[in-house]
């Protein structure tokens, strides 16, 4: 391992600009002549729009234009799309209602886009928006996930019962047979609470149109700028693909919420041409709460069957998934193919059957949020496994161990083939770090102080990479899910890597440079990573699903291999040897068995001056590209152990210890990987203890600010004990599995398993706030009194 190669905890290259305030986020861009957009949003969850009078707004100071859905329709601007087709059990396609960027005739959630004001200043645009007169016929709203399909309210005409699809996966008959012969059946009802992603940078967009060249530019807070360009051009029809440049510069966190193609950026690009001025929109936090896609929101009943030996023999799951008022970009994939295929967990379960009913409600659209389907699956599996172990009076760690998959590859009954793993190794290491053997002593010590101590396990698995293309295509994805890279070697031997991945906190400028440094034997200072600009990088699929290491870096590795192969051809001419005798090692091209060699940079120069070879036989230059499509998903897995102490008098839960042992395959930069684990755990703990998006019955979001929606703060979290085990991933050339989502997937059941262990009963929902825990603690003390 070199100081800056694979495996080294290299300090991040990007940090110099971030710690000095020189990062460039979308809102930092101001274009000459820029005007400001402000969206008038629906105050009602559900209403027919009788009329919109923009006249009074048009005469307000500074107003340049006011547009409504009619203006978009007149320009034949299409609606927003959902790019993943799901078919119901009966073979019928999902029922996708229209999703106009600005409302046409109806609003379907609080925050839905009614009109946009373009003005000289943001303050003027806001003032003018208040002058728009909208006559609404307010309709009753449906907000409750479990009740949506039975409600008399109808969100979309295409779906009379508010059902988007009734989908299933697995083998129903085999599962029923397993339950018929089960010795024991454990049942559980779960709510996976609705979350708001809340990256600290709110979404923003600047649209620009050049009348002379007919070119459009969009600066946007995106995790996948090429996908945004494709959707804006091919589906929404705002601008032709080759005329639209999308730039996603520094982006302040995404967690999924910046994957999607929203109304606001669509309108900014379109309006820039209409008003012949750059148009800027920056979300404030209140708008973000209302209109960023939310996450999770499942209601689930699940049952686990075990035989007389304590072996899991069957799992059946019924989930109702709330997709909100419209189908967001990838929403349909989240409660289906990103969910049910993970229901086997780390366990050898011969029969699994899962049904998912997806529903419309008058709430913000729900889509992928860190983990996307996999946290929901893990919550089901790990809560059920824990409850089963308790009902069978078995140690939860040993019950898990007995049911672990130990032979690979392993085909589950829910379409996945796990390639590799060593789950017992992670469990053993986690038990040791967590000092599990002395837990009972600590519990007794807490009891002496009147406190309730509990321990909770989460033995999670996830499927990352979201690939290969052929597989996701067969499951309904509208796109391929490979990644691209181009490695440009300059005549001086420095290297630019153009990648279709996008960094919004993951540190790609460092880790991707480490790969180049490792392979080419040059310093990371000689490497620049270029991303986030469709004029520079030809195409790419972007960053989500923990895919940038496994897929994005594999594309770079493939391109580097081509660079080395070309370099060998150049070196053969320069060193006057046959190509087969050229070796590349430690940054030098040499002739095998001799001391003749030249440094990588020297060969790069020779490639460009091309004096030593005929351009007829060997093209000058040193630049190679690659598209990499993996052979399988990757399967990161691990064990997290949470230990809590509850004060039964206040209901406050304090996390005393957190142990995380994860197998991410080969690790490029352990410092960055551990940071990803920390951040994921924090979001998972947030879900378990603090966060929850709550709509009232009229569809008003009553947790629509940081005052009302409880974000995790430093004081809410412990220091984390993080350990690693490694089984290299066989599905990509680097052996990487991915690490971005693990913490958020693992954490919620670990916390709730710990709390239920402490309380001695299973009846606690997320978020387990002090009030909820206090009530549960009282119930545990005096079962009758609290009824």
């Amino acid at each position, binding site marked *: 391992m070199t100081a800056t190669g694979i495996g080294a905890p290299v300090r991040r290259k990007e940090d110099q*600009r971030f710690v000095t305030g020189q990062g460039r986020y979308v809102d930092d861009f101001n274009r000459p002549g820029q005007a400001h957009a402000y969206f008038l949003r629906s105050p009602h969850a559900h209403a027919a729009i009788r009329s919109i009078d923009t006249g009074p707004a048009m005469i307000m100071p500074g107003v340049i234009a006011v547009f409504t859905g009619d203006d978009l329709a007149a320009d034949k601007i299409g609606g927003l799309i959902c790019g993943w087709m799901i078919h119901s059990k009966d073979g019928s396609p999902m029922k996708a209602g229209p999703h106009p960027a600005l409302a046409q005739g109806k609003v379907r959630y609080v925050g839905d886009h009614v009109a946009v004001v373009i003005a000289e200043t943001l303050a003027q645009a806001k003032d003018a928006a208040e002058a728009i007169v909208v006559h609404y016929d307010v309709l009753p709203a449906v907000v409750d996930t479990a009740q949506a399909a039975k409600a008399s309210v109808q969100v979309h005409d295409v779906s009379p019962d508010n059902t988007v699809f009734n989908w299933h996966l697995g083998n129903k008959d085999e599962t029923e047979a397993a339950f018929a012969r089960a010795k024991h059946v454990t049942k559980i009802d779960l709510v996976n609470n609705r979350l708001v992603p809340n990256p*600290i940078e709110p979404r923003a967009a600047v649209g620009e149109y050049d009348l002379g060249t007919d070119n459009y530019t969009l600066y946007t807070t995106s995790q996948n700028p090429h996908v945004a360009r494709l959707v804006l051009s091919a589906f929404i029809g705002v601008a032709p693909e080759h005329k639209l440049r999308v730039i996603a510069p520094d982006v302040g966190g995404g967690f999924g919420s910046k994957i999607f193609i929203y109304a606001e950026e669509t309108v900014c690009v379109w309006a820039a041409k209409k008003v012949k001025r750059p148009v800027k929109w920056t979300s404030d936090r209140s708008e973000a709460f209302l209109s960023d896609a939310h996450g999770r929101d499942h209601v689930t009943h699940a049952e686990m069957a075990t035989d007389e030996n304590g072996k899991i023999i069957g799992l059946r799951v019924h989930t109702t998934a709330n997709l909100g008022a419209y189908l967001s970009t990838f929403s349909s994939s989240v409660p289906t193919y990103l969910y049910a295929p993970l229901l086997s967990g780390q366990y050898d379960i011969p029969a699994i059957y899962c049904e998912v009913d997806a529903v419309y409600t008058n709430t913000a659209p729900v889509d992928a949020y860190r983990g996307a389907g996999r946290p929901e699956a893990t919550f089901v599996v790990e809560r059920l496994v824990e409850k089963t172990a308790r009902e069978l009076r078995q140690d939860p760690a040993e019950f898990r161990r007995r049911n672990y998959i130990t032979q690979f590859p392993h085909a589950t009954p829910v379409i996945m083939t796990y390639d590799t793993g060593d789950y017992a190794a992670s469990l053993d290491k986690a038990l040791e770090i967590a000092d599990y053997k002395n837990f009972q002593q600590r519990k007794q010590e807490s009891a002496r102080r009147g406190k309730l101590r509990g321990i909770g396990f989460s033995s999670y698995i996830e499927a990352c990479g979201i690939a290969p293309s052929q597989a996701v295509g067969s499951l309904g994805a509208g796109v391929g899910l490979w990644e691209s890279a181009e490695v440009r070697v300059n005549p001086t031997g420095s290297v630019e890597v153009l990648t279709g991945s996008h960094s919004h906190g993951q540190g790609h400028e460092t880790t991707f440079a480490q790969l180049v440094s490792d392979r080419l034997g040059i310093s990371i200072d000689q490497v620049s990573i270029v991303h986030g600009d469709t004029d520079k990088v030809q195409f790419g699929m972007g960053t989500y699903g923990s895919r940038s290491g496994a897929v994005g870096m594999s594309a770079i590795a493939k391109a580097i291999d081509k660079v080395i192969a070309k370099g060998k051809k150049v070196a053969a001419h320069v060193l006057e040897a046959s190509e087969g005798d050229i070796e590349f090692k430690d940054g030098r091209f040499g002739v095998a068995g001799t001391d003749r060699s030249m440094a990588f940079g020297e060969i790069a120069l020779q490639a460009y001056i091309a004096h030593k070879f005929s351009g007829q036989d060997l093209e000058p230059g040193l630049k190679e590209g690659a598209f990499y499509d993996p052979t399988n998903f990757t399967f990161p897995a691990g064990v997290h152990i949470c230990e809590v102490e509850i004060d039964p008098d206040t209901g406050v839960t304090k996390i005393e210890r957190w142990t995380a042992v994860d197998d991410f395959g080969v690790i490029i930069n352990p410092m960055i990987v551990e940071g990803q684990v920390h951040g994921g755990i924090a979001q998972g703990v947030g879900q378990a203890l603090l966060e929850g998006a709550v709509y009232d019955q009229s569809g008003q979001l009553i947790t629509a600010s940081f005052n009302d929606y409880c974000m995790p703060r*430093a004081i809410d979290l412990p220091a984390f004990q993080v350990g690693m085990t490694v089984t290299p991933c066989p599905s990509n050339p680097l052996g990487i599995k991915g690490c971005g989502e693990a913490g958020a997937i693992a954490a919620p059941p670990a916390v709730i398993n710990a709390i239920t262990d402490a309380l001695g009963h299973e009846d606690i929902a997320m978020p387990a706030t002090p009030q909820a825990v206090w009530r549960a603690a009282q119930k545990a003390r005096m079962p009758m009194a609290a009824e």
Partner: protein
Amino acid sequence: MTTVSLTVNGQSVTADVDPRTLLVQFLRDNLRLTGTHVGCDTSQCGACVVHLNGQAVKSCTTLAVQANASVVTTIEGIAQGGELHPMQAAFREHHGLQCGYCTPGMIMSAIDIVNRKGNTLDEQTIRAELEGNLCRCTGYHNIVKAVAAGAKGMAQAPLQQAAE
């Protein structure tokens, strides 16, 4: 319009502003000091923290006119002579940032914590004192380490503190 005159990062600045202009808008829009960020509209997240006369304030809840005749220091003003401030260096060294958006506010708050609480800070003190700053990326683990290390670093670099 109202005239405000103040010192920002050692430079005298005078401008005519709409009286409702927030200090953060003045810094970002008038002075193009875009290192100070806006992450919320309820004074909760702390991405906008700057120093006003040596004390941390949330510039999203401070009017520009309130800063009249004052000394303001932003994230752009704490490195001296090309050397990172010890707190900036500690955030980089301990991986106390990921996306970088909350980082300027975190660093300005952290310096203020050290100024108030001294150079030896235990974990609980740091966690409690970071109450006004939200980070969605790091889980705070490495921020806490960075603040403790930065506090020690500030003790070893008295010139840096004097420059603040």
